[in-house]
């Protein structure tokens, strides 16, 4: 995580005004400028994602509409896989925090973007594997936070997401997505903890556990993730 992201996570409102006014401004210019390099665009998108992920609700509301357009624009149009990955991750972060009514207007579009990446014939290639994991992560955030009860589409989306776990390519994303799922189980996410999901959830938890036990070097769980899994399986 970037320095400003860590500070935002730990100090929230106490630092966010400064970060937005003095640091994000410079990065925003990179997003507006023609000819910014892919690295520069990635850095800028990462910074704003950190602000959206870790900042206050007020700051989230302030930045989200503009960033939503920016992420969608890059996710749809860029040829650079790193930029696409950062943009799709940003869309997932927004899905996690945005209210359902507002997100419902763009839900289908974002899901289609994720599916396009996940279903790419080369999705598992070395070149695209990180991007694919991030698209699965974003789809998971939509499934877990933007669902509608008793809705077949929401149910199918959640099942598709669960069937794609565990993530194995992007270590950081794998750890975060697995922890997100485990935390949602422990906090009794009403949609995830439906009776119909029980069998699939058990399979997924066993698959995560098996992958972690058989290939600990893949680090698909960090210590916090392992503790959460142990708590659930106890």
């Amino acid at each position, binding site marked *: *995580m*970037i*320095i*400003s992201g*860590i*500070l935002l996570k*730990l*100090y929230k409102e*106490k*630092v966010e005004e*400064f*970060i937005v006014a*003095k*640091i994000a401004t*410079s990065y925003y210019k990179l997003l507006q400028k023609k000819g910014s*390099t892919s*690295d*520069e665009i990635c*850095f800028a998108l*990462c910074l704003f994602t950190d602000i959206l992920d870790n900042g206050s609700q007020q700051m989230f509301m302030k930045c989200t509409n503009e960033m939503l357009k920016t992420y969608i624009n890059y996710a749809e149009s860029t040829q650079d896989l790193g930029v696409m990955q950062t943009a799709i991750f940003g869309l997932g972060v927004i899905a996690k925090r945005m209210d359902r009514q507002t997100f419902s207007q763009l839900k289908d579009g974002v899901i289609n973007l994720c599916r396009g990446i996940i279903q790419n014939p080369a999705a598992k290639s070395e070149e695209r594997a990180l991007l694919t994991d991030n698209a699965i992560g974003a789809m998971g955030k939509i499934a877990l936070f933007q669902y509608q009860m008793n809705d077949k589409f929401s149910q199918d989306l959640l099942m598709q997401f669960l069937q794609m776990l565990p993530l194995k390519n992007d270590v950081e994303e794998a750890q975060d997505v697995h922890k997100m799922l485990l935390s949602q189980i422990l906090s009794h996410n009403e949609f995830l903890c439906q009776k119909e999901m029980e069998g699939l959830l058990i399979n997924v938890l066993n698959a995560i556990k098996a992958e972690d036990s058989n290939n600990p070097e893949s680090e698909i769980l960090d210590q916090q993730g392992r503790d959460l899994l142990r708590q659930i399986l106890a």
Partner: protein
Amino acid sequence: MCCSNEQQVAEIINNLLPIILEEIEPYFKIRNDIEVSVILKLVQRCLDLLKSPLVSLEVVNRILLFLEKSINLCDLLKKQILDDFDNLDEVDEDKEAEMQEDYNYTNEMARSKLFL
């Protein structure tokens, strides 16, 4: 760092980081992005060890000012590289590749180290 708990880490950061950030000041004046990026890495490593807001706000504010200066330095150096390239009398593929390499290097040194 060989600290046994987060409190000790925070104590070291609170005591040492202000001194280090003071020491780095002259390097901004001579536009030394290499030294600045070394300190960025150090700040990153220190903060990675924290799980709660134990560093004083005064030190946090100094870190933020340091970040702002680092970003401004990076922007300045990149602008310089582009201006120097624009002012060349003759431009060929080699010179353009060299400029691109310098630009990316500066980007990496002074900016991307924020993202370690």
